[in-house]
C-alpha cells in the first residue's frame, strides 16, 4: 500500500515537472510572439512548435509508461469549496485562480469533455460505425484514385514549369557553339569564304571559257603540258571531289583567271577541284 | 625621322691598313670639331629561295643601329620592306627546317657583311666612319654623312658636298648613284639601306683588299 502511494507521489512529481516545463516554454513562446513579432522569423517559430510538441510527446509517454500507476483509478475529491480568497492557491497558480469556489471547480476538475464536444464525438463515432468494410474499401479506393490524380496533375504542372524554365533559358541563349566554330574556322582557314565566291563567279568563268576556248588554244604553245598535269591532278583529286568542290574554287579571282586562261579552258570538262589544283600546280 | 644620307666608300691609299685609315679619319673628326656620340653598326644577311620555290629570289635583311627597332628586307627586285625587328623571326620560321625538310629559304653562307664604327655629331650633321667586314675579313671603309634637318636630297646636296669633300675628297663631286635618281623626292631610311646594300654588294664581289695592303 505504502509502496503504491510512493509510486503515485513520484509519478505526480514527474508529471508536475513536465507540465511546468511545458508551461515555461509556452510562456517563453508567447512572450516572444508578443515582443519580437517584428524580427521573428518563421523558422524560429517552427523551432518553438517543435519544442512544444516534443514536450507534449514526452508528457504522453510518461503517462503511458508502466511506472506511472493508472491515474484513472485515482479519485480526486474536492473536500471543501470556499468563496474566500485563498492566498496559498493564489501563489500556486501564479495569481490565476484566487479562490477555490463554485465557479472554477467544475472547469478545473472536469473529467469529461464538454457536452457539445461529447455530442460531436458521439456523432462521428456513430458515423464511423455506419460504414461497412466494403463501403470503406470503396471510399478508400476512390480516395486513392483522387489523390493519385491530383498527384499526376501536380507532377505534370511541375514538368511544364521546368520545361518552361528550360525554354526560357534557351530563349536567353547568347552564344552558340556552332557559330563559334564557324567563326573560328573562317578566320583560321577561310572556310566558307571560298565557297561563297564560287556562287558568284561559278557560272561566269564557264561561259567565258567556252567562248575563249579556240583563241587561247591557238595562242599558247605550252598547253599540252598543262593537260598532262591536269590529268594527273584530276586523278588524284577525284576521290575527294565532293568534299573539295565547295571549298577550292576561291582561287578564281578575275586576275588569276585571265592570266591562266590557257589552263582553265583546257579543264572545261573536269571538276572545279581539279581545275584549281592544276592552277596551284601551275603556279608552283 | 631622319635627314638626307650620303654613303661613300673611302679609297684606301696604297700602303695603308684599314685601321690606319680609320684612325686618321677619326683624328680629322676631332679637328673639325665633331663630338663622339657612340658606335653604330649596319649589318646585312642574305637569304635565297629554296630551289623548288615558284619564284627564285634573294632577300637581303639589313639592320641599322640608327633605327634600332627596324628591320629592312630588300628583294633583288628592289622592293624594300620596312618592318619591325620581329620580321627576323618570321624570316627565321621561313628558313627553319621542319621535320627533316628544308625551309622555303636558305641563308647564304659567307655573305654576312657589316659596317661598324664610330658615330660623330657636328651641329646638325651626323658622320659615321665604319670599317666593313665580310665574315670578319676587313673589306674597306664606308663614310656616312647625314644632314638631319632636310629631307630633300636636291635641296641640301650642295651643302653636303662641302662637308663631304672635306672628308672623302673628290669622290664626293657627284652624289651617290642611288641618290641621283631620288634628288627631288623625300628621303627615307630605306634609301640609306639601299645605299649600304649597293656598297655591300660591291664589297662582296671584290677580293679582300686588306690582304694586299697589310
Amino acid at each position, binding site marked *: 500500500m505504502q509502496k503504491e502511494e510512493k509510486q503515485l507521489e513520484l509519478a505526480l512529481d514527474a508529471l508536475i515537472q513536465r507540465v511546468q516545463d511545458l508551461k515555461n516554454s509556452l510562456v517563453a513562446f508567447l512572450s516572444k510572439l508578443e515582443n519580437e513579432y517584428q524580427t521573428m522569423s518563421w523558422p524560429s517559430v517552427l523551432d518553438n512548435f517543435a519544442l512544444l510538441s516534443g514536450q507534449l510527446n514526452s508528457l504522453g509517454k510518461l503517462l503511458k509508461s508502466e511506472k506511472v500507476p493508472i491515474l484513472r483509478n485515482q479519485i480526486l475529491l474536492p473536500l471543501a469549496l470556499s468563496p474566500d480568497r485563498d492566498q496559498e492557491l493564489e501563489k500556486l497558480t501564479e495569481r490565476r485562480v484566487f479562490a477555490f469556489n463554485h465557479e472554477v471547480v467544475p472547469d478545473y476538475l472536469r473529467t469529461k469533455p464538454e457536452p457539445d464536444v461529447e455530442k460531436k464525438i458521439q456523432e462521428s463515432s456513430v458515423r464511423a460505425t455506419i460504414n461497412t468494410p466494403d463501403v470503406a474499401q470503396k471510399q478508400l479506393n476512390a480516395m486513392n484514385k483522387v489523390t493519385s490524380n491530383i498527384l499526376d496533375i501536380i507532377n505534370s504542372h511541375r514538368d511544364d514549369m521546368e520545361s518552361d524554365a528550360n525554354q526560357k533559358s534557351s530563349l536567353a541563349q547568347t552564344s552558340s557553339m556552332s557559330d563559334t566554330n564557324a567563326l573560328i574556322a573562317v578566320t583560321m582557314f577561310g572556310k566558307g569564304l571560298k565557297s561563297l565566291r564560287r556562287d558568284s563567279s561559278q557560272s561566269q568563268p564557264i561561259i567565258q571559257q567556252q567562248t575563249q576556248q579556240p583563241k587561247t588554244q591557238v595562242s599558247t604553245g605550252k598547253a599540252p603540258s598543262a593537260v598532262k598535269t591536269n590529268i594527273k591532278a584530276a586523278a588524284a583529286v577525284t576521290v575527294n571531289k565532293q568534299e573539295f568542290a565547295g571549298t577550292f574554287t576561291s582561287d578564281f579571282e578575275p586576275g588569276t583567271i585571265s592570266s591562266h586562261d590557257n589552263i582553265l579552258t583546257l579543264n572545261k570538262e573536269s571538276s572545279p577541284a581539279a581545275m584549281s589544283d592544276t592552277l596551284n600546280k601551275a603556279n608552283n | *625621322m*631622319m*635627314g638626307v644620307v650620303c654613303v661613300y666608300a673611302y679609297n684606301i691609299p696604297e700602303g695603308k691598313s684599314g685601321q690606319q685609315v680609320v684612325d686618321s679619319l677619326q683624328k680629322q673628326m676631332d679637328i673639325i*670639331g665633331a663630338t663622339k656620340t657612340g658606335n653604330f653598326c649596319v649589318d646585312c644577311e642574305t637569304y635565297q629561295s629554296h630551289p623548288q620555290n615558284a619564284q627564285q629570289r634573294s632577300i637581303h635583311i639589313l639592320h641599322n643601329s640608327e633605327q634600332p627597332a627596324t628591320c629592312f628586307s630588300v628583294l633583288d627586285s628592289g622592293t624594300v620592306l620596312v618592318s619591325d625587328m620581329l620580321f627576323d623571326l618570321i624570316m627565321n620560321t621561313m628558313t627553319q627546317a621542319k621535320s627533316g625538310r628544308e625551309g622555303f629559304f636558305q641563308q647564304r653562307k659567307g655573305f654576312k657583311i657589316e659596317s661598324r664604327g664610330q658615330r660623330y655629331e*657636328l*651641329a*646638325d*650633321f651626323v658622320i659615321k666612319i665604319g670599317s666593313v667586314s665580310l665574315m670578319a675579313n676587313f673589306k674597306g671603309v664606308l663614310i656616312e654623312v647625314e*644632314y*638631319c*634637318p*632636310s*629631307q*630633300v636630297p*636636291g*635641296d*641640301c646636296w*650642295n*651643302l653636303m*658636298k*662641302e*662637308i663631304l669633300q672635306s672628308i672623302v675628297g673628290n669622290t664626293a663631286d657627284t652624289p651617290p648613284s642611288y641618290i641621283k635618281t631620288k634628288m627631288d623626292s*623625300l628621303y627615307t631610311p630605306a634609301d640609306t639601306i639601299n645605299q649600304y646594300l649597293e656598297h655591300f654588294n660591291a664589297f662582296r664581289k671584290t677580293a679582300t683588299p686588306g690582304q694586299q695592303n697589310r
Partner: protein
Amino acid sequence: MADNEVERLTQAISLTQKLRTSVTRVFSDLSDGYHISQGNEKASLNVLQKALLTVNDNYSDLEKLVPNLNSVNITAPNSALVGIDPVYDKTPIYSQITHAHKWTNKVHKLADYASAILSPNQLKRTHQGGQPLAIKRQRKTPHAHAIPPQGVDQCISALERLWSDMPITLSRPMGNCAVLQITLSRTLRALIVLRGLLIESVIVKAYSEDFLTPEGKVDLWSRSRYQVFNKVTDMVTAATLHFCHPQMPDLSLRSFLVWFNSYKTLFSAPCQKCGKHLQGAFPPVWRELRTATPQHDGCRQT
C-alpha cells in the same frame, strides 16, 4: 500621433483613388458614348449628372480631409532621379559623370596650389594713379591686337592665296588668338602665334617635325630638335620686330611673310657674301631684311 497621421494619409489615398475611379468612369462613359433612344435623353443626362455629382462629392470629401494633412517631406536625393531614366545605356551619363568627377578633383587640387602660392605674395597690379592713365587715353590707341576674328580670317585667307608653296592653316586652340601653321615648301614648318594681327611669337621647325604635343594638341612652346632651326627661330623672331607696324598690321604681316618665304632656299642657296654653303656646319640662316638674300650669321655681322 504618428498613427493618426498614417491613418489620415491612407484615408486620403483611398479618397484620391475613389475620385480617380469616378472621374475615369465619367470620361470612359463619355468616350464610349451613350445609347440614346428617343425620349430617353433625359435619363442619360441623369446618369451623367449622377456621375458628376459623385465626382463632386468625392472631391469635396478629399478637400475636407486635405487641410488636416501635414505636408509630408520626402527627401529624395538627386541620385534617386537617375533611376527614372530608363535608357541609361544609351545616354553618355556615366562617362560624363566620371569625367566631371575627374575634373572637379583636378580643379580642386589646382585651386589649392594656387591659393597656397598666392596667399604669401599679394600682387597689386592696379596701383596706378589716375594721371598716367589719362595721358594714355589721349594717344591714339593701337588696334592691331584687337582685330575681330573675322577680320583675321579674311586677312589670312587673302595672304594664303599669294604663295602656292606655302600653305597656311589657321586654328584657334585657346580662344581668340589665331595660330598659323605654315609649311614652307619641303624645307621647314613654322608656327606663328598672332594677337589680332600682331605677331606674338614664331617657332620654326624641320619639315619632318610637327607642332603637336604627345596628347595631340597644338604645341606652342617646344623648339626644334635641330640646331639650325633654332637659329632660324631666333633670327625670325628678331625680324618680327623689324616688320612690326602697329598702324598697318595687315601690311606688316604680309611683308613679314614675303620675307619669310625666302627661307625655302635655306639649304640650297649659298651665302651672298662668302659664296659658300656652310659656315661652322651651318647653312646661311639669315635673310637680309630688305633684299631677302641669304647670309651666314657670321657674314651678316661683318
